[in-house]
């Protein structure tokens, strides 16, 4: 058993092993791109578990994405099979959800709360709240939720907003109404997951309880923690807890808009009195890219100056491939056409290992269309908060209705999505009235109504499993499978195909993350995860720079390297020595360091018809343009 772990430990570099085996209190590991930080983290978790086989404490690892958590979990399982039960690897949100499910009673939160992650759900809650109290709003409606989120992210409750001025008084009132309405619906939104957990840890007994359960804590991508998340960690650690192990790279902080902050790493070192270990060796990128990345960072003055420049671990240009290339086009349309054409001409193997990055989603969508024109399969790597087909939205609504029979908001969704794919509408008010007069649950009234409608008889195969599930005659897995099978057999649309593939991936992910779970928990997990379909393995991946964290590909294309594109117009306006420009520069750094073999940079002279200068980052990285690189119009450079 220990063999896999021993072998892996043996393969680590000395400095990596030092971090894995660290046993002297709080530690910050400064890890550049490709320095093997995930490996260090998983080995550390595995080793802590391996050395305490007769103990029961757990190890907590907090990550930023479900994908990262999933990957870490499966690696830990491989390293120390049978011990992974004691490794709790979570995103901040899912960890807080778990804490609240178990101890939320102290705050009046029931264990079966729903998580509202979609804007539309939250907007509906807000509307209900306002309608209920017959409030009139001075604010523009759409601005309220972002304002509430900002307040919550700074752990500011309604009572603290109240007494500033007239304007805040009104905001506080709406904020409070919204919170009460959420509580009435037995629901929490994303930011309240963190905020409410933080409130629990205000009680020292609760913090101590979690210190007892989790003897060791790890935080991945520490540079991305926002104010709320960091406050949560500090409160949970109380005065004395010191088994904290954070992995960070301040040069990869690209979430400042979300409250992440390069100074936070310094706070961590000071607050916890951390030792620092640096992992400067880059095992991923070719030397030329490591050098470019180092050059780029020199321009950021706000970074930790004691940090070592990255060292290339891979041999020089031995493979004969040109490690970095530059393309220049006349217009953004030419860029999209040119790059897609070039990638279309790559061999299948390389194409499947190709990632295209851009600063904005708009650039990627143009490129996606260009790939369609070339008949090349391409996938946008984006979080999807909801399924896209009415069919799966309907299925989820049914499951939610079974779980929360009195949820009227969800009933609306159920009725609407059903009519979207059956083109038969059912009168919502009629349903409500019947449910009230007959004192029946909404779902059973809906089921009855559908069954009585002759035109809907073709959908019987969909309805009956749901009815059986609702009465306990079928278990969730079989009921869901029957419905999905029925969808599959009836010539699914592209959207539905995407969703079915996403469902397969999600149910597998949830099974590995939390095991077989009852319906309510399954729905909570579903809510927390992206509904992105599984990508065609041969497809080109397209991603924004912000979505590219943690990825690595043989070939990377970074497009749109022009002033006011990357760096963004917004940051350019703030001035050359602004923090905003520095964040853009870190974005560029993250983008190029995704590369394992070959990097292609491109720019156009005009974007949306406006002339744009070459990005300053090109020069900073040391890539001056050779005249031959300029290719007018369509076509690949020779």
């Amino acid at each position, binding site marked *: 058993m220990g063999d896999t772990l021993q072998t892996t430990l043996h393969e680590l570099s000395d400095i990596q092993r030092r971090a894995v085996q660290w046993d002297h209190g709080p530690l910050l590991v400064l890890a550049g791109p490709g320095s093997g930080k995930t490996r260090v983290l998983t080995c550390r978790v595995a080793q802590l578990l391996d050395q305490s086989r007769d103990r*029961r404490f757990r190890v907590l690892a907090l990550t930023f994405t479900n994908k990262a958590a999933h990957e870490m979990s499966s690696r830990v399982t491989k390293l120390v099979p049978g011990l992974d039960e004691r490794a709790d690897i979570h995103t901040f949100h899912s960890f807080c959800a*778990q804490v609240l*499910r178990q101890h939320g009673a*102290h705050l009046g939160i029931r264990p079966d709360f729903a998580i509202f992650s979609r804007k539309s759900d939250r907007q509906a809650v807000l509307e209900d709240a306002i309608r209920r109290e017959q409030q009139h709003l001075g604010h523009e409606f759409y601005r309220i939720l972002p304002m509430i989120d900002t307040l919550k992210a700074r752990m500011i409750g309604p009572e603290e907003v109240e007494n500033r001025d007239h304007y805040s008084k009104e905001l506080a009132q709406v904020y409070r109404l919204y919170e009460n309405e959420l509580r009435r619906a037995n629901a929490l939104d994303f930011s309240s997951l963190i905020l409410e957990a933080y409130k629990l840890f205000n009680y020292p007994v609760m913090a101590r309880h979690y210190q007892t*359960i989790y*003897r060791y804590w790890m935080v991945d991508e520490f540079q991305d923690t926002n104010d709320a998340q960091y406050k949560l960690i500090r409160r949970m650690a109380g005065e004395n807890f010191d088994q904290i192990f954070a992995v960070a790279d301040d040069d990869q902080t690209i979430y400042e808009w979300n409250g992440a902050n390069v100074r936070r790493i310094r706070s961590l070192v000071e607050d916890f009195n951390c030792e620092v270990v640096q992992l400067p060796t880059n095992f991923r990128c070719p030397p030329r890219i490591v050098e470019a990345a180092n050059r780029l960072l020199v321009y950021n003055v706000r970074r930790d100056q004691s940090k070592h420049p990255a060292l290339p671990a891979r041999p020089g240009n031995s493979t004969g491939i040109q490690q970095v290339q530059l393309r220049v086009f006349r217009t953004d349309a030419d860029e999209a056409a040119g790059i897609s054409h070039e990638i279309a001409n790559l061999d299948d193997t390389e194409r499947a290992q190709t990632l295209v990055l851009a600063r904005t989603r708009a650039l990627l969508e143009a490129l996606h269309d260009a790939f369609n024109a070339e008949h090349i399969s391409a996938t946008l790597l984006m979080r999807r908060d909801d399924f896209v087909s009415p069919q799966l939205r309907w299925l989820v609504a049914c499951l939610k209705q079974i779980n929360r029979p009195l949820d009227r908001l969800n009933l609306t969704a159920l009725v609407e999505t059903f009519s979207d794919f059956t083109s038969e509408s059912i009168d919502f008010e009629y349903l409500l009235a019947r449910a009230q007069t007959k004192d029946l649950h909404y779902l059973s009234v809906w089921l009855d109504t559908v069954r009585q409608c002759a035109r809907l008889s073709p959908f019987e195969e969909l309805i009956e499993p749901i009815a059986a599930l609702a009465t*306990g005659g079928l278990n969730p897995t079989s009921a869901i499978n029957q419905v999905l099978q029925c969808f599959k057999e009836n010539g699914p649309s592209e959207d539905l195909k995407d969703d079915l593939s996403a469902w397969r991936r999600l149910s597998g992910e949830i099974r590995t993350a939390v095991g077989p*779970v*009852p319906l309510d*928990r399954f729905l909570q997990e579903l809510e927390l995860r992206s509904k992105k379909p599984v990508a065609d393995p041969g497809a080109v991946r397209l991603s924004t720079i912000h979505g590219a964290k943690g990825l690595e590909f043989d070939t990377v294309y970074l497009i749109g390297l022009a002033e006011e594109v990357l760096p963004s117009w917004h940051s350019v306006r703030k001035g050359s020595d602004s923090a905003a420009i520095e964040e853009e520069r870190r974005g560029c750094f993250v983008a190029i360091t995704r590369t394992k073999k070959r990097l292609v940079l491109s720019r156009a002279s005009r974007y949306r018809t406006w002339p744009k200068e070459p990005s300053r980052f090109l020069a900073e990285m040391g890539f001056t343009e050779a005249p031959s690189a300029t290719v007018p119009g369509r076509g690949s450079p020779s």
Partner: protein
Amino acid sequence: MHISRIEIKNFRCIRHLAVDFGDTTVFVGPNNAGKTAILDALRIALTRRWGQRGAGFNEYDIHLADDTEDPKSSSGISIELRAEERKPEEWSDDIVADLADIVQQSFHTPLRSVTLRARCMWNADTETFEPGWEFLDSSRTPLVGRSARRLNLERFWHYLPVFYLGALRDSGDEFSTRSSQFWTRLLKDLNIPPELETRALQTLDSLNRELLEADPRLDSIAETLSGATRIAARDREGGLDLRMVPLKIWDMLSRAEIIHRNEPGLPWLPLRHQGQGIQSLSVIFLFQAFVDHVLRELFEQGSEPVLALEEPETHLHPQAVRTLWHNVDALPGQKIVTTHSPYFVQNVPFRDLRLVRLTSNGTEVRSLPAEFTASVPPLPGLNAVAENASGLLNYEQTTETLTVRGVLDEKTYRKLLTCCGTDKRRSELGLIIRNLRDSSALYIGDSELQALETYARRMRGEIFFAERWLIVEGQADFLIVHAIASALDYDLDQHGVAVIDAQNNGNPATFAALARAFNIPWLAVFDGDKAGQDFRKAIASRGFSDEELESRCRTHAERDLEAQLVADGLGPELREVLKTVGVKDSNELRDDDLVTRLRDNKTDYAAKFAARLRLDANLVQRTPEAFRTVIEQLRGLR
């Protein structure tokens, strides 16, 4: 870990009751009152087989109010078990981490707890009585998700292994390797070094040979029997031999048995040939050996056995039963005991006693709690009232529990009522608080119980088995009231009336308070002097109403029993009685001297006079009216 409380609803003869448990808890009550139902509820909820269909509960277990009630319409069985720390940090870090998914941390005290609810009710869809289980959060809402995994149930059981020794424990079963819960495990765990095993087997082999050779007939028997192998002929040569001694070491160990002799010189005999008492006792000690030697290996570090022990006194001599309490109390783990033996109860501390009785409302359990609780929602000012009376009151918001440690005085009670002032449910809340005040009036303090332990040890064994109490002042009253009752054809022993001569056993007021706390109907007769009046006042000061005092307490018109007897015209008979106890001039005495002499020879004259009363029933018409009235009143007293 230990069970601190069980709450049972709709189970067999129990409609609804809650019982708190200590390290040792002793249930006393008539047959069929529900003692076994309580033990079974505990056992079913903590037993491994439970939770599968067809095991655990069945439809006959559902409590029915009468013959016409349908078990299908019952709200179902619910058994809630709570395990709470007795002191901070009682549970090791490993226990807490192992049970992390189900442990609840209190907010205001460092104490942690786990609550399990087992239930069973009719499911109309599946048409079965479905058992189920769930762990609860601090507000008794079922925990979901990860906490609802069966794994947690098994772990919880592991820390609270339950063992059951029924009243009819048979040493033949308990010391058999087929049916014993302990003996087999103990023997299996024995470690025989391989060298010793080899040597023992060689010795056995040679012994077997010698035995076979001792009588030639054995050889011929073996030869005849081997015909069987020849008939069932196979390709290979089989074999048959006679074995007089065990073939394998395990075989030999499994024949291990307990032998015993009463005195040196008497023959050793196997346990099954001993008296029933020693057999029954041996089984209890077998449990101790099991816990001492193999429990830790079978369960967890920190597992504490729960022993449900029915009638430990079975077949034992009173002297043995008296000392038995100390042995039972010293057994490892938590003990839950039922008994019918006054000798056993004699030594049980008052707070550990639970009186079980069957009422029209189902089984009822009474005890002498050190605190009283009520469920009260958070009310304005409640925390302040609780803090001001911090020795007496405690309020925990999460669990909405108000606790009184002692008698809730009128002033504090009023303050609590004021807190309900504006609440919508104030009349309902007022009732809850009044009930709390009333039940707290049953409080009996530690020092008073301590005094009882000292004075009333001998008597208290039996009074808890009585159905009614008659409190009198002294020994003479005791003797005479028994005789009067017999003469009035109401034998006190036969009718379950315990006569308590309070003066020799402490304080009559304490007994009145005890009777009230245990819900035992009681009456009292006191002398007409100041001491008698003081007893009455002492009882009044325990919060009994004037009407109640009036109906329960009688007083002789004269200053004491002797004066009363003489005043009632029993002078001639008493003079004769005095003569028989050696007062020669009894006939010459004036009445007041007669009274003095009677007082000087209290117990002697009382015994003789009682004997006289039994012979001459006509005398009873002249006995003190107070006695005759209470005896009349005792008939049918509830």
